[in-house]
Each structure stands twice: as structure tokens, then as C-alpha cells.
């Protein structure tokens, strides 16, 4: 479980494009591929939802 959240954290950092050396080593020693794939899919979906919400919000604001 711990390794999953660590993978989540690393995937999030990869969205930003910044990663610390310490975390990178952690990923490559204790990380499991399945955790990275899962967190990648979850976060990508979350990103899409966030973009949709922002667009909806902006359009709703503009209607006024």
C-alpha cells in the first residue's frame, strides 16, 4: 500500500515534470510496475475531469 502512494506521488510529479533524486531511487528499488500503470490511468482520468470542470465553470461564468 505504501508503495502505491509512493507511485502516486511520483506520477503526480511527472505531471509537473519535476522529481527529486531521492524519490527516483525509491521508485526504482521498491516500486511495482502495476502501481505506476494504475496511478497513471487514475491521474490521467482525474486530469481530464478537472479540465472538463474548469471549462464548464468558465462557460457557466461567461453565460452571466
Amino acid at each position, binding site marked *: 500500500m505504501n508503495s502505491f502512494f509512493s507511485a502516486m506521488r511520483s506520477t503526480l510529479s511527472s505531471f*509537473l*515534470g*519535476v*522529481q*527529486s*533524486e531521492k524519490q527516483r531511487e525509491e521508485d526504482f528499488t521498491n516500486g511495482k510496475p502495476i502501481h505506476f500503470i494504475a496511478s497513471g490511468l487514475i491521474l490521467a482520468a482525474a486530469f481530464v475531469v478537472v479540465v472538463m470542470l474548469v471549462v464548464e465553470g*468558465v*462557460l457557466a461564468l*461567461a453565460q452571466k
Partner: protein
Amino acid sequence: METRKNILRGSLFGALTMPSAAFAEWGLNMPVGVTEISRSVFSLHMTIFWVCVAIAVVVFGVMFYSMFHHRKSRGAKSAHFHENTTVEVIWTIIPVAILVAMAVPSAATLIEMYDPSDAEIDVQITGYQWKWKYDYLDEEVSFFSNLSTSRDAIYNAEQKGENYLLEVDKHLVLPVDTKIRFLLTANDVIHSWWVPDLAVKKDAIPGFINESWTIIEKPGIYRGQCTELCGKDHGYMPVVVEAVSKEDYAAWVATIKAEAAAKADLAGKTWTLDELMTEGEQVYLKACAACHMPNGEGLPGAFPALKNSPIAVGDVAAHIDIVVNGKPGTAMQAYKDQLSAVEMAAVITYERNAWGNNTGEAVTPNQIADMSWDMDRLMTVGEEVYGKACAACHQPNGQGIPGAFPGLVGTDIVMGDIGAHIDIVVNGKAGSAMQAFKDQLSPEEIAAVVTYERNAWGNNVGDSVKPSTVASWNGGEK
């Protein structure tokens, strides 16, 4: 040299100041335009430009300062660290913040640009290789807009004019202070319709309809171009918008509709004998009765009787000829410039059936029109039409471009069955660049260009096409 310097100084000055006359003259910046949208696009552009300038000053400032201050001759040693997460996070967050800050005003403008609701006028714009077609959907007005720069100017045989490659035969006329919606599509490949002064730039894609809109605030001529590479003459399909007052627009619509109706009368309508007789009697009383008398008996010794006259009950061609061309040296004038083809057809029909002439023959407007299209006129007009509508692909010398556009010298269609030749020009060839010209050219123009192709460049087939044949080609359907 002095002017060079001035231009340089001027352009630097121009680039660094807000909209000034310098922009218009030298075209250094995008135009401010004549719509609310174009003004907000311009101010967005300037805002973002200054943001970029500020970023550049800071980034390059730090860079040059560091290079100078920590130079080797002062004993600076390069640092050898690999990462610094904090710095990296900061230099990622700051640009994101700047982008978001710029997105806020841009989104406002974009949303407005994409809202074509409540438009009063709909214009469908269709891109063709290489011309634009404009359909005013509410008015049933429709026309093609072709480049009007002459080939001689393009090939340097003639002085290039002020609006070189930015001039067309028919402008897209639009009223000011009116919301106009554009519906854009294309007939062959992707084109893009762009008028900088309106800040409208939209792709025209076959099979899709894109929407855009404008409210022009100032009457004037606004020029633009196709901005999607669309083939050989991509640079030769400009856009010219003419914005006029609402009254002038209404007047323009009325004229163009009247012209179209007059044409349709001639080409499309089938006239019955009765209709021609009714119309003919009126024309006769107005234009002919003064000499030939209302009862057709003329004035003996001065004006011949038409009742039972050898021409009026004899050869139709001779009858048409004397009315169209007159009889030189006598009081019988040529009516071809005074009466329309419909009026001439009607009055001739009337003369052949009134006062007991009763030949039962009706002369159609098309017969009259054909009379005025002899070989010489067909060839002269044909050459003009060819240069305007066909030479871009088939080349002025008819040789075509091997592998893309066929030559028209000595080919089966051009030398062979005239029907097949007319058909490919009228209806085009589906799936090829050869378009249907029936909506773009008049029957007269098609007759002329087909005749021209059959007799130019040594083809010398010797036959010719009458406009009426073309007008009734698809069973008279447009």
C-alpha cells in the same frame, strides 16, 4: 541611405510603440481591425507581446548578468550540483501562473468569438480550387468570387497594380452594424477563410460546416486570403469584403436579384406561344407600331407592311436577323441593344402570328441569344473564359500539367463527341479536380469555352456550341 536609416528607425520605433500609423504603412504588426472582436484580439496580442518582452528582459538579464559577473577571468568556478528540486518547482510554477493569467482574458474573447447566436444574416462560404463561393442564405443570392489580377501582371508582362493578387471580380458585400454569421465549408480540399481586419480566420473543410461571425463597424474594403495550403493556385484565391451601409446593402441585394431574375427568364423559363404573344403585343405597340402601324399594315411607300410580308411569314432566320441586326441604310434599326432577348423573341413571335399571319411558330429567347453568338464571338469570349477559369490547371497553351491536369490538345474528348465535351465542363468529373462549371459560368460562357477548346491550339475541329444547347443540357435543370 538616409531613407534606409529612417525606415530602420521607423520600424524600431513602430515595433516598440502601441498601434500607430507606422503599423498600417509598413505592416509590422497585425491590424487593429474594424470589429469589437478584432480590437480585443489586437489588445490581447499586445498584452501577451509585452508579457513576453518582460519575461525576455528578466531571463536574458539574469543570464547576461551571470555570464558577466561570474566570468572566468575573475576566477569564477562552475558549480557541479545535479539537482535542486525547489528551484525546479519554482521555475515550473511561475510559467504556469503566467499562462493561467494570460488564459483568463483570452478565454473571454474566445468565448465571444465562438458565439454566433442572434445573427441577422447568414452567409455560406465554400472554398473551391481556387476561388470562393458566397451564398447569402436568406436572400437566395449566390455567386463565385474569382481573382481579377490579370495573368499578364502575374507573369510580369504588365505593371502590377496596388492590390496585386488581393483583388476579385465580385466582392462579398456586407452591411455594417449587423451581426453576420459565416458558415464555412469546402468543395474539394481544406481551405481557410481569413480577413485580418475582421479577425475572422476559419478553416473551410469538405463535409464539415464551421461557424464564425462578425459585426463590421466601418464601411470599407477589407482584403484577406486563403490560409490553408490548398494546391497550385493557393495564393490566387483572395477574399475581398466590402462593408456598406444598411441601405446600400439592401440596394445591392435588389440589383443582384434583379440581374439573376433576368438571366433566369432567359435561360430557365420555357415560354408558351400565348405568353410570347401577350408580351410581344406590348413590345410591338411600344417599339414598332409607330412605323409598321398597330394593324401591321405599315405606311405604303415609307414603312413596309408586316401583315403577310415575305419575311414575317417566311424564313424565321431572316426575320430574326432583320430585327436583331436591323437593315443598314434604312429606318429599320438594329434592336439587339435596345430590347432584351425575351422582348425580341416575343415581338417576332407576335409578328408571325398577328393580323392573320398565323404561322403558329414561336421564337424562343434562346434562339435570339444563339443568333448573336457566331464563331468569332464564341472564340473571343471563349479565350477569355479559358484564361479565367481553366488555364490555372490546363495551362494557357492547353498542354496541362502531366500527372495532374490533362492536356486538352488532340485528346479524345476534345476532338471527339461534342456531347461528352460539353458534359464534362457542365457537370465536371466526380472525384477529380475537374469541377462542374454549371453554377460558375453562364451557358454563353460554357458554349464559348468549349468552342474555344475545340478550335484552339491546332485542334481545329471546326464545330461550335450554341448557348441554348448548354442551357438545356441537364434537361434545363441547373
